[in-house]
């Protein structure tokens, strides 16, 4: 039984959110100073869209049917750059032990890091999406709000599972090599859901199937947010 003092000190849910927002603030502040994560992500995204733009448009083929696949695979590859740094930087700076000393359920580390990864990837998407449509010559015909919902859900699932696996890979010596090998097999349902949902919005697939694919994305996101919340304490256990 906890003592009276222990009960008085029990962390509240608002305390947990405060720790999440503190970590998110730290991540964004540090990134704003150094741009060590966003700069390579943006450059890589621009390089990919340029290569696809010049490489595929020259064929004269209609890129509409393959566009959603190109879009999501590109974003997931770009996202790996950010995920790789997520815990590697804490290890390099020897600050992970400090985070483990914070008086909170350690899932706050996962949620703060996942939100930061989501923000970084969203910034890259906002910058590079117009270029994808422009350089690949695919008209933007999707309804705006459902398209944004699809982008957010497709990105959130990736950020969540990627952050968890980044924490796992950070324990190993070959973290950079291991992360893609771990992420992509588990990401397949999200890739299918995101690509099909985007295709149905852009007229490259069954227009009535959007809700069904969105349901798959929602289920995937729910599973891979809940799972790390349950397991994260064990993943970062000292």
């Amino acid at each position, binding site marked *: 039984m906890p003592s009276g003092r222990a009960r008085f*000190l029990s962390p509240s849910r608002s305390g947990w959110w405060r720790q999440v927002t503190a970590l998110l*603030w730290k991540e964004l502040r*540090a990134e704003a100073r150094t741009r060590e994560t966003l700069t390579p992500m943006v450059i890589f995204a621009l390089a990919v869209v340029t290569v696809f733009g010049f490489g595929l448009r020259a064929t004269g083929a209609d890129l509409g049917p393959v566009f959603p696949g190109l879009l999501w695979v590109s974003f997931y590859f770009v996202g790996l750059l950010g995920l790789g740094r997520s815990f590697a930087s804490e290890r390099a700076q020897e*600050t992970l032990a400090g985070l483990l000393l914070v*008086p909170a359920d350690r899932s706050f580390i996962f949620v703060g890091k996942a939100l930061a990864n989501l923000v970084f990837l969203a910034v890259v998407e906002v910058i590079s999406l117009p270029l994808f449509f422009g350089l690949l010559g695919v008209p933007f015909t999707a309804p705006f709000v459902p398209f944004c919902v699809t982008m957010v859900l497709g990105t959130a699932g990736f950020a969540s599972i990627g952050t968890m696996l980044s924490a796992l890979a950070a324990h190993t010596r070959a973290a950079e090599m291991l992360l893609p090998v771990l992420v992509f097999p588990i990401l397949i349902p999200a890739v299918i859901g995101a690509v099909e949902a985007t295709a149905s919005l852009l007229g490259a697939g069954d227009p009535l199937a959007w809700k069904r694919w969105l349901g798959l994305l929602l289920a995937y996101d729910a599973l891979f947010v809940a799972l790390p919340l349950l397991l994260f304490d064990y993943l970062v256990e000292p």
Partner: protein
Amino acid sequence: MAEPGRPAVVVRDLVQRLGGHEVLRGVSFEVPEGQVLAVMGPNGAGKTTLLRVLGTLLPPSGGQVLVGGCDVRRCGPDLRRRIGFLGHHTFLYPQLTGWENLWFWARAFGVARAGARIEEMLATVGLELFAHEPVRHYSRGMQQRLALARALLHDPPLLLLDEPYTGLDPEAAALLDAVIRRWGERGRTVVMTSHDPGRALAASDRVLVLQRGRVALLGFSRDLDARSLEEMCRRGGRGS
């Protein structure tokens, strides 16, 4: 010297294995509230491992460790709130300023009136003028002082200091002496490791010497002299 109070730390038959090697072998001792305990011993004796167990960074392999009456295996977040830890690493983010680092840790530890507390801590460690400089521009000694401010920020009843004098100039070392003394006077408990017998005797109420993971000596600082302590710490390391 502080009068002994209730035990702030109780360690009974602590065994700690790391990578198949037994680093601590049946260590037992108590630290009453308000006392300063200096842990000494040669390299590899288990000092840092002991501090990491007390700080909840390593779950004990065997035995029992109570901090403030709480078992380190069971109390989790509640217990971590009562501990201030200054280890070999500063837990500071070099991209952030000194003030921003303390702001982050204050928010993480739920420090009330964080702004005022940060100003107070920066003044305590003499870094007010450098508060808005990125930490990567700080010298090693300045980083160590800021790390001390970080460890004290949430006013923990137990302060764990792992070789805190490393990298400090004489002025900063005197400041640390004053902080430790004041902490003890306020009824707070300090467990620190040190390689410097003179400084450890001056700063502590009691001294514990570890040799090859076992307690070789536990005595009052006033009854010990620096030369014999130094001799004990030269013997009994993992390599000796």
